[in-house]
C-alpha cells in the first residue's frame, strides 16, 4: 500500500496546476463566463496542446491511456481554477462511454478527435420529467434536461428507450432537424442545456453487449465521471480551506487576527476533518470506479459522494461564514468556489440519493446475514 503518486502523475498534475495559475486566472475566467457562449474554444485548444484532453483516451486512439487516478489528478488541479470548459463531460465521461458502448468504427472516428480537442462530444442522459426520450424507428423524441455543456457539443450522445424497453445509445448532430438546444448558465457559472428532440434522426452507436442494453456501459461511464467529480471537489475544498486560513490570519477584529478566536479555530479544524475524510474517499473512489463488481463499485462511490457532498456543504458554508461579508461578494473567487461546491453536491446524485442507496444495500445485506 502506498499513497504516493509517481513521477508521471506528479508531472501531469503540475502541468494543469501551472496552467490554472498562469493562464486561467480569475479575471480571464470572468471574461469567459461573461462571454456569449460562456466557455472558450481557445482554452480548449490550449488544453489540447497540454495533452490533458488525451488523458481519457486509449493509446490506440492517440490518447495517453491513463486511468481514473490520473484523471483525478487533472480534475483536482483544475478545481481551484473553476474551469468553465467541458472537461468532465467531454474529456472524461464521453470517452469512457464511447470506449464501453460504441462500435469499433465509432471509436476510431471519434476518440482521436476527442484527444486532440477537435471534437467535443457530450453525453445527454437525464430525461426531462415526464418527457423521457424514446427511440421509434431511429427517430428520437423527448427531452433531456440540465445536460452540462450540451450547448458546446459538436456531437451529442443520447440515451433513449427503445420500443423493446431496452436503453440504447444514439449519436446526434446538434444541428440536425428536430433538435433544439436551449442553453443556459447554471448556478456555478458553467453551462448546461435542455435538449428537445422532436422526431430527430439519430444513429444508433451501440456495439456488442451494449447493442441491446446500454445501461451497464452508461453506469460504468458515469461512475468514472463521478470519481472525477469527487477529485475536482477536493481541489476546490483545498483552495477554499487554505484561503479561509489565510483570511483568518490576516483579518483583524478586536485587536487580534480573528484566527486567534478559538471558536473559529475549531470550525477550521472541522473543515479540515471534512477535507481529509473527503480526500480519503476520493482516492477510494478513483481506485474502485472501474471495478467490474457493480455492487462494490456503487457502494464505494455512494460512500464517497456522501462524504464529499457533506463536506462540500460544510466547507462552502463555513468558508463564507468565516469570511463574513467578504465571503458573500462576487468579487472574491471564494463565492465562486462556494457555488461550484454547491453544484457538485447536487450533481451525479445528491447526498440523500447516495446515502439512501448505500443504506438500502446495507439493510439488505445485514438482514440477509
Amino acid at each position, binding site marked *: 500500500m502506498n499513497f504516493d503518486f509517481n513521477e508521471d502523475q506528479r508531472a501531469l498534475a503540475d502541468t494543469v496546476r501551472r496552467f490554472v495559475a498562469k493562464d486561467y486566472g480569475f479575471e480571464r475566467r470572468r471574461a469567459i463566463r461573461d462571454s456569449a457562449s460562456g466557455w472558450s474554444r481557445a482554452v480548449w485548444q490550449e488544453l489540447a496542446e497540454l495533452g490533458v484532453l488525451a488523458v481519457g483516451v486509449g493509446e490506440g486512439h492517440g490518447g495517453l491511456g491513463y486511468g481514473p487516478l490520473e484523471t483525478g489528478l487533472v480534475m483536482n488541479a483544475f478545481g481551484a481554477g473553476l474551469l468553465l470548459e467541458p472537461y468532465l463531460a467531454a474529456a472524461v465521461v464521453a470517452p469512457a462511454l464511447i470506449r464501453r458502448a460504441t462500435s469499433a468504427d465509432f471509436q476510431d472516428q471519434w476518440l482521436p478527435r476527442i484527444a486532440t480537442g477537435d471534437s467535443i462530444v457530450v453525453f445527454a442522459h437525464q430525461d426531462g420529467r415526464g418527457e423521457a426520450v424514446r427511440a421509434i424507428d431511429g427517430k428520437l423524441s423527448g427531452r433531456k434536461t440540465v445536460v452540462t455543456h450540451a450547448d458546446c457539443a459538436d456531437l451529442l450522445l443520447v440515451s433513449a428507450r427503445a420500443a423493446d424497453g431496452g436503453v440504447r445509445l444514439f449519436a446526434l448532430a446538434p444541428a440536425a432537424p428536430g433538435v433544439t438546444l436551449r442553453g443556459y448558465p447554471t*448556478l456555478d457559472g458553467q453551462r448546461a442545456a435542455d435538449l428537445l428532440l422532436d422526431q430527430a434522426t439519430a444513429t444508433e452507436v451501440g456495439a456488442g453487449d451494449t447493442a441491446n442494453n446500454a445501461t451497464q456501459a452508461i453506469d460504468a461511464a458515469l461512475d468514472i465521471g463521478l470519481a472525477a467529480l469527487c477529485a475536482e471537489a477536493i481541489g476546490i475544498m483545498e483552495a477554499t480551506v487554505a484561503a479561509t486560513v489565510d483570511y483568518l490570519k490576516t483579518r483583524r477584529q478586536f485587536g487580534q487576527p480573528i484566527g486567534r478566536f478559538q471558536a473559529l479555530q475549531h470550525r477550521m479544524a472541522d473543515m479540515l476533518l471534512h477535507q481529509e475524510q473527503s480526500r480519503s474517499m476520493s482516492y477510494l473512489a478513483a481506485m474502485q470506479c472501474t471495478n467490474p463488481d457493480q455492487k462494490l463499485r456503487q457502494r464505494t462511490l455512494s460512500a464517497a459522494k456522501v462524504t464529499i457532498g457533506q463536506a462540500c456543504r460544510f466547507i462552502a458554508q463555513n468558508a463564507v461564514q468565516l469570511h463574513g461579508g467578504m465571503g458573500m*461578494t462576487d468579487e472574491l473567487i471564494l463565492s465562486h468556489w462556494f457555488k461550484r461546491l454547491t453544484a457538485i453536491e447536487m450533481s451525479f446524485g445528491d447526498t440523500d440519493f447516495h446515502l439512501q442507496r448505500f443504506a438500502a444495500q446495507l439493510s439488505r445485506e445485514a438482514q440477509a446475514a
Partner: protein
Amino acid sequence: MDLDFSPGENAFREEVRQFVNDGLPPHIRHKVMNGIHLDRDDHVLWQRTLHQRGWGGVGWPREFGGPGWTPTELYIFEEECAKGGAPRLISFGLKMIAPVLMVFGSPEQQARYLPKIMSAEEWWCQGYSEPGAGSDLASLKTRAELVKSSAGDHYLVNGQKTWTTLGQYADWIFCLVRTDPEAKPQRGISFLLIDMKSPGVTVRPIITLDGAHEVNEVWLEDVRVPVANRIGEENQGWTYAKFLLGHERTNIAGIGIAKRELARLKRIAAAEGRLDEALFAARVAQLEIDLMALEITNLRVLSAEGAHQAPGPEASILKIKGTEIQQAIAELMMQAVGSAALPVGQTGVGPDYAANLGAGYCNLRKLSIFGGSNEIQKNIISQMIMGL
C-alpha cells in the same frame, strides 16, 4: 400562564390579514411568495399603502404618528404581513433611524425626517460598517472634522462605509463617524445624518454571490454635513448607535417569514414527491418543530420585555435560531428539486418554482453574517446571559 392571544389581538390579526389580502398588489405578492427580488418601487408602493391605512409608522408610538401598537400587536402585524406575502418593512428608516430620532433627535429633526419616513418619500440607509470595522464596529475610521464657517458650522466627512444595504435607493444615510481621533475607540464617535445627494458621496455596488445588487460601498470624500444634522451631542454617537442596534433586533426571529417559506417548502416537496421519502420528510418535520418552538420562545421574550423596552441579550437566541431555520428551509427547498435548481433564474426548464431556489439559498447565507454574526450572538449569550 396563557398561550392564547386575547380576543382583541385575534381580531387585530384578522384585520391585518384582511388588509394584506385586499391591499397588497398581486404582483408584489407574487414576487415575495416566489422569492423574486423586489425593486424600490415595490417597497415604496407597499409602504405608501400602509401609510394610507394609517399604519405607516409601524412600531411607532402615537405621538409621532404611529399606530401605537403593543409589542404583541407589532409581532402579529409583521407575522401576518410576512405570511400574506408583503415585503419586509424598509427597516433603515422605520426601525433604525426613527427610534433614534424619537429619543435623541431634536424636535426640528423629528419634524423634518419622521413624516417622510412614514410616507416613503425618503429612503434611508445605514452607515455603520467599514472595511476594517465589521463585528468590531468601534474600530471605525471615517473621520468628521468640525469646520467653523460663516455660512454655518459643518463637518467635513471622509471615509468609506460598506455593506450598505439598498444604499442605491437611499436619499439619506445615518453614519457613525469619528470626531475625536485621540479618544478611546468607543468615545469620540458622533452620529450624523447625511444627504446622499451631497457632493462627495459615491455609491458603488457590491454584487453578491447570488448575482444580486443588495449591498453597496459608500465613499465619502470631503462631504459637508451641517452641524444641525448631528444627532445629540458630539462624541456621544456610540450611545445612540447601541440604542439603535437594540431596536434593529425587534422581529429578529422572522417567524412570519419562516412560516411563509416553510409552507412554500412543503408545497414544493409535495409537488416533487419528496415527502414520501422518510428521510426528507423528517428533515421538513424537524424544521417545522424547531419553528414551533422558536415561535413560543419569541413570544416569551416579547412578553418578558414588556411594553417599550429594546430587546435584551435573549434576542440573540432568536437571531441564531431564526436565521438557522430560514437558511435550512432555503437549503431544503433547493435540495427538494435537486439538479433542477442548477439552471438559475431559468423558467421553462424545470418547474417554475425551481428557478430561484439556488439564488435564494446563496442569498440567505447573509443571514448568519449580517446584523451581528451568529458567532457574535453566541458571544453575547455566553457572556451577557451566562456570565462566562
